[in-house]
């Protein structure tokens, strides 16, 4: 039986970042991964947010063959089946008002996990972490009521005073430690992905830097398209319809919804223009929580990334969260070793620091953020919003068919007719704004509260669609 300072279970982004941080801090670190190579089974989008470049300096040197910068996000709103044509499209570049330079430059970078995961693992190994592939952890070792190590399928045991569970959404470590049984159907989504390859020149001509696209439509969950250097991942449904509780309640088959989106004429035209060829069918689950989970640590153990349920509450982005929590957990592990304290109380400081960190901040107004996406998943609401957007766009800008001043003058009646729709949006947005502004802009807080009171009174009669 071998002894380490720290054992990390799972070499996804969370585990590798934890192992890297720990090894750099001089901890004797073991990183265990069930796959034959890192990333082998980690189906994901995958687009890495610019936040990661802000927070992890080692990404400056990252150059992977599959990388494609996304400097344009596109949302396509389709008409209902069987037509499924584009009714409304919004495209946007990064905003100059973003708070750090990387976010003013790009949204995300699309890439393959089978390149990204090994990149991170290699950094951890270079820093001194010991990697063991083909190592399926099937049990934990307990000592004096604390987690004191892990057991592999073959029975082999490894001991360390601290273990980090970075074993993803189905975390066996979390279950064995008694931190949770399994996610409830309203906490977790089931998403499918089709991988397409396409010639790089076609990608450069047709997609260029519009690397993140989403397809919405009445009844659709919001399917996403992520572009990398020589292909795209079409994934879905988006969080609303892939939420297991909703899927089973509404009889939505996630795989079927994705294939329906694939058959939509605009998607077909894009794929043909790209000369895209389907190469792989993938599926993976993903948590979608409206608040940060409570049970993420106990004596001798911390959970990071998906194992802890950290994907954010709007569209469930999770890799930066996994990396951030991995680094934080490794820092707490180092302190615990210095203090010789591995008690539940000491580990609890991980949960507290996580809550105060930018990862925790992503959960502010989590319930409203989730609600926003859920609204788009409601066929009637989505159809109303879609037609309102079309009316506004046509009458404000694209008025070539009618006398312009007259058409533009219709804006007021369009807005008036859409008061219920706007109110429904306000019902989600105002509490959201309030929660943020209470901390950051105390000056406006009372004003917003006043508006909310008025709106709430106005809406108390279940006004809406």
């Amino acid at each position: 039986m071998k002894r380490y300072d720290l054992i990390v279970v799972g070499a996804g982004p969370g585990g590798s970042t934890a192992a890297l941080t720990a090894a750099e801090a001089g901890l004797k670190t073991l990183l265990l991964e069930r796959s034959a190579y890192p990333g082998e089974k980690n189906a994901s989008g995958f687009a890495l947010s610019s936040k990661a470049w802000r927070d992890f300096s080692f990404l400056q040197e990252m150059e992977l063959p599959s990388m494609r910068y996304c400097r344009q996000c596109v949302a396509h709103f389709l008409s209902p089946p069987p037509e499924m044509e584009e009714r409304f499209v919004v495209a946007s570049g990064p905003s100059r008002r973003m708070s750090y330079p990387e976010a003013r430059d790009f949204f995300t970078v699309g890439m393959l996990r089978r390149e990204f995961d090994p990149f991170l693992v290699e950094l951890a190994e270079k820093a001194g972490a010991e990697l063991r592939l083909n190592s399926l952890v099937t049990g934990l070792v307990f000592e004096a009521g604390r987690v004191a190590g892990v057991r592999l399928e073959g029975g082999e045991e490894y001991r360390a005073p601290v273990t980090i569970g970075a074993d993803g959404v189905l975390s066996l470590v979390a279950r064995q430690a008694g931190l949770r049984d399994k996610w409830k159907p309203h906490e977790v989504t089931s998403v499918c992905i089709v991988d397409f390859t396409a010639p790089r020149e076609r990608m450069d001509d047709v997609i260029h830097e519009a690397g993140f696209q989403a397809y919405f439509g009445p009844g659709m969950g919001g399917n996403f398209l992520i572009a990398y250097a020589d292909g795209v991942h079409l994934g879905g449904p988006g969080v609303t319809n892939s939420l297991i509780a909703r899927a089973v309640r509404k009889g939505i088959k996630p795989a079927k919804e994705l294939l329906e989106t694939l058959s939509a004429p605009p998607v077909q035209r894009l794929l043909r223009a790209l000369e895209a060829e389907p190469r792989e069918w993938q599926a993976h689950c993903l948590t979608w929580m409206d608040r940060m989970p409570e049970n993420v640590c106990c004596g001798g153990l911390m959970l990071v990334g998906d194992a802890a349920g950290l994907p954010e509450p709007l569209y469930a982005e999770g890799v930066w969260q996994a990396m951030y929590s991995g680094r934080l957990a490794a820092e707490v592990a180092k302190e615990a070793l210095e203090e010789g304290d591995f008690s539940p109380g000491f580990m609890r400081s991980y949960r507290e620091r996580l809550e105060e960190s930018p990862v925790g901040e992503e959960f502010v107004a989590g319930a409203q953020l989730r609600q926003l996406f859920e609204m788009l998943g409601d066929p009637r609401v989505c159809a109303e919003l879609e037609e309102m957007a079309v009316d506004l766009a046509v009458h404000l800008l694209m008025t070539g068919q009618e006398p312009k001043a007259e058409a533009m003058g219709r804006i007021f009646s369009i807005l008036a007719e859409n008061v219920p729709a706007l109110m429904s949006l306000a019902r989600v947005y105002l509490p959201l704004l309030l929660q943020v502004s209470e901390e950051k802009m105390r000056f406006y807080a009372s004003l917003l509260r006043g508006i909310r009171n008025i709106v709430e009174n106005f809406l108390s009669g279940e006004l809406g669609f």
Partner: protein
Amino acid sequence: MSKKHTIDVDKFSLVKVKPSPRNFIFFREESCDGCGNCALICPMDLWRMRKGRASLLAKYRERCLECGSCYLACEKEAIEFGYPPAGSGVTYERA
């Protein structure tokens, strides 16, 4: 307008699985209430409903993507999920 060729996806031909030498999904038939959640959610259609009960196709070891959706969708605790042993199961070449 000319008829364009449609880009279709035959999901079964697009997965690479090295069959697991042992079982890793365990079905407790006596707990199943026949709700059909597993059959609906499985991205590889590996669950079938027969006579008001679920059943897992025997060839699941050759097709399962280890996503755990069936296990998470079952509210009757009729499905237990582990992973196939190291060196087997699904390989994504373009994850």
